[in-house]
């Protein structure tokens, strides 16, 4: 992780610019941004811990609490909403006990409600981890989630 952060520093005229990339690296390594993970980043970039935490907490894609093994990012913005995204959100609650911001008891899924993810032409849409799924229906969503253990 430290080596990776060093390489990234070289791409910017100022060390601090490596903060977002470094947070991504730490999040990948630890699964989420615990205080320890942020401390490691702060040390690597020679920044105050409070500053790192203050920055990380601004961005919705940095997770400041532990997440499940798979992250469902469901869009409910307008183009997805008018084509049924809210029914999908309800289905995740009814079938998996998954509430927005929550994690299933077995730790298999976490759910985050997204604003537009740029797949409005094939709405409704979601990302599972980094995989994009479009044209979701109440039928195909279960099949898609079945692929993630």
């Amino acid at each position, binding site marked *: 992780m430290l080596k990776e952060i060093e390489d990234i520093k070289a791409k910017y005229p100022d060390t601090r610019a490596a903060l977002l990339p470094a947070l991504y690296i730490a999040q990948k390594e630890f699964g989420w941004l615990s205080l320890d993970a942020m401390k490691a980043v702060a040390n690597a970039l020679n920044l105050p811990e409070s500053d790192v935490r203050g920055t990380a907490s*601004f961005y919705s894609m940095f997770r400041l609490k532990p997440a499940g093994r798979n992250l469902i990012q469901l869009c409910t913005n307008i183009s997805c909403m008018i084509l049924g995204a809210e029914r999908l959100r309800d289905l995740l609650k009814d079938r998996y006990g998954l509430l927005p911001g929550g994690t299933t008891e077995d730790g298999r899924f976490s759910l985050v409600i997204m*604003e*537009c993810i740029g797949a409005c032409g*094939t709405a409704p849409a979601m990302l599972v981890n980094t995989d994009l799924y479009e044209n979701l229906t109440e039928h195909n969503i279960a099949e898609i989630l079945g692929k993630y253990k």
Partner: protein
Amino acid sequence: MEKFLLRNTENPNSADIEEYIKTGGYKNISKAFELQPSDIIEEVKKSGLRGRGGAGFPTFMKWSFASADKKFPKYLICNADEGEPGTFKDRPILEKNPHLLIEGMIISGYALKAEYGYIYLRGEYPYAYDVMNQAVRDAYDKGYLGDNILGKNIKFNLVVHLGAGAYICGEETALLDSLEGRRGLPRNKPPFPVNAGAWGMPTIVNNVETLANIPHIIEIGADAYSKIGFPDCPGPKLYCVSGHVEKPGVFELPMGISLREIIYDYAGGTKNGKKLKAVFPGGISAPVLPADSIDCAMDFVSLPKAGSMLGSAAVMVMDETVCMVKIAHRAMKFFERESCGKCTPCREGTEWLRKILERIENGRGRNEDISLLTDISNNIFGKSFCALGDGAAGVMKSILKHFRAEFEEHIKEKRCRFKQKD
């Protein structure tokens, strides 16, 4: 119309550098390098190109200001944050035509004497991130990027930088703060980024589609380019259509085509032939247009006259089954969540609006709520630190203006009649 921005994108390998070169790609770099940087800026001026990021600002003006500044190094930033809800027009360039963007950035960097470029790409596009990174690596390997491009002693280095899910980071000064590794809060202007942008140096921020137009201007010349589409605002344009239409998607069309043509001739008309109710012509930050106002030209100059804005050219189509109170509520939830919190009118105002809309939608609206919505909107509009608040207030006002009766009905009937159909 012959496609330029989406040229060859039906080819599944269009993102491959060899494919791009085979179809004439990167030849405009050599052509541009024959010209003086100032000549290229002059060509861009003659072309009439306006920025495609939302405001339609003349590109040459920004470029002239930046090149007049004597400080170096200068930075060229591509705004690939594409956060406006309903917008997915930059995505096909990023995913299927990445080398067009890189070529545009190399030429722009040369014209602006900017030797360092960054692509600020939204975190929600992991696939585009992989494609763009691969494309940048390949362009380095082929000698199109680096310290001695094509052996001409011209330098341009390019880095793809991933955002992390904050809409405000699409606003160009917030983007700069975010790029520098801070919370993405908009900056005070002046100084403008063209004089003091990234790391305090002269910085040009342009949208993906704007930069992707540059090779075309070099290829066909400013005169020919300026004849495409609408005279005051020419060029090819990407329109992304979503919502209740038969064939949603991204369409490359001449700038200034009418909204009706886009919906009915290209997007196949409304889904299942239902009655059209309303359209956001440029994302949810652009005022909504009712069904009887779609005979307007879709360009940066004409739409303001029709009461809206081209914004990100995100055409969101809503049919008769849609409740406009609910639409307003969802839009405001977005603005509340994405308000950066720096200024009070936007931070507090969007939350108040959302709460009032929520009670109206849930049948608990009060008689004074409509005037309250208007009053709060007026206190956000023109008083917020950046244009996020203006967008939120403008949309609220437009929905109230065209669909006031629906709000009155919710309050009077104490329910939403669209709900059971949902």
